[in-house]
């Protein structure tokens, strides 16, 4: 998952850097990689949490709009989880999981008016979220 990967990376980097053995070629390559990754993470950091909030806002709105569109008979199928965690990283994961679950149903019903509209709504949300996430990763590439 995009927003919890930095934590795992930092942990793995820390474990590697705390090794006391004499570095061989493979370890040196990993150390160089850590340098690149930390530089990128540092470039993303100031906007990381704001982007996460903005992305969650987009996904929440899309989720609500799609749920409102779904015929009653399919509600059980499409709304697989009502849980909306307060923690923003967990919320992001939950929203992505729910939208991914919805996608299969929307694909099956994309030739019906409500299905087409809902799929369009989901695509719009993915596109909007991708743009703000892209602005964040652009900073990493540029660092």
């Amino acid at each position, binding site marked *: *998952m*995009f927003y919890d*990967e*930095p934590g*795992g*990376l930092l942990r*793995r*980097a820390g*474990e*590697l850097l705390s*090794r006391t053995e004499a570095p061989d070629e*493979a*370890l040196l390559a*990993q150390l160089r*990689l*850590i340098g690149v*990754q930390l530089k*990128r*993470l540092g470039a*993303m950091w100031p906007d990381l949490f704001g982007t996460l909030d903005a*992305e969650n806002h987009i996904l929440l709105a899309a989720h609500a709009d799609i749920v409102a569109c779904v015929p009653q008979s399919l509600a059980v199928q499409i709304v697989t989880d009502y849980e909306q965690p307060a923690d923003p990283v967990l919320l992001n*994961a939950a929203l*992505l*999981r729910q*939208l*991914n*679950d919805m*996608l*299969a149903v929307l*694909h099956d019903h*994309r030739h019906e008016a409500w299905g087409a509209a809902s*799929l369009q709504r*989901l*695509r719009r949300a*993915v*596109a909007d*979220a*991708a*743009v703000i*996430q*892209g602005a*964040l*990763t*652009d900073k*990493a*590439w540029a660092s």
Partner: protein
Amino acid sequence: MTDLDSHSTAESSVGAQWDSLARFLHSEAFADAATLRIVDVRRPRGGMSWETFFVLLDIGSPHDRQQWIAVKRAPGDVGPLGPYNARKDAIIFQSLHGHVPVPKFVAHCDDPDVFVRPFTASELIEGESDDLYRIERWPTWQTHRDELGQAIVDALAALHRFRWQGNSILETLRIPGSIHDALRPMVEWYSQPYQRRRDDVTLAQIFWRDLGVWLLDNAPEIPVDEMVVVHGDLRFGNMLWQGTRVAAIIDWERAMLGDPMSNLGFLSMPMARRRRPELMGMAVTFERLDELYTAALGTPIDRRRFQYYMIFWQFIEGSLMSRPTSGRPEGVGPGGTDLAARRPVVGTLPIGPTLHLNQTLRLVEAFENGDHDVL
């Protein structure tokens, strides 16, 4: 390669597998020679799926010469680019030889008793090859880029002029009923890892999953007779260069029959020109590509279909790179190596998938809006 030492590392040519390979090549490719020995073996650097060996043969009377060949062996496991089909390479090389720059076929074998796994052997082409990451440092690219672009289009034109109808290439390439029918197996194969319900989903994964459906819904049809052989991996790294001439195009595992714009789409997809977005395939601008293509084949690039195939190949490559890494236990990095092991892997931030997503999204939106000038 022009300089084997700088492109390969030495490998032992002693052992049962090499004896068996030599016997096979002697009987299948050089049956008239009194003797055949393998005298040197090298492994090229790089490569991610097939095992490739450069093998020096000492061929006895009446040939009395030494010849390097390239032996390409299917990998032990079926990786993301599988399933592997050595026979496909063999038929394609034989069918295209004389029409399109491909290495000359030497032998092919499906029997694992001969060389552990199925393999093809072809002549080793003398030439230079660089992947996209190093291309800007290649002196020929720096000084003769337009000529390289022209050579690529010439090779493509030869491929597009190749008449597959009634040709032996149909022993390995299926004639699809439609473009939709041609693309569906690939789209389904690359979408498959995204179909399973999972707890950890990324934005990019939702996008690729949805794009698979979008691609099949929007596949631009052309008459079957206008289809051509589509290479499926047409990148700088799969072209061997002699100066500014394409000496050979290699790696035809993903070849199929399809739209001629598919070859141009692969060459030009945004992923293949990230560092120089204005250069299609890191070679020439779109306007120049169109000019060269029109001059070579008499018809301009169809922008709508060209744009579609850039999206299609972004999907193939992007979905491959964003695949879920399911079942990764705690403490194991994205590379799959436990940190407690001798070879630790720290991993990388997942920023590539977001870039690929945005590159592709831009094209999808333009396609839907009918704005086919967006590249």
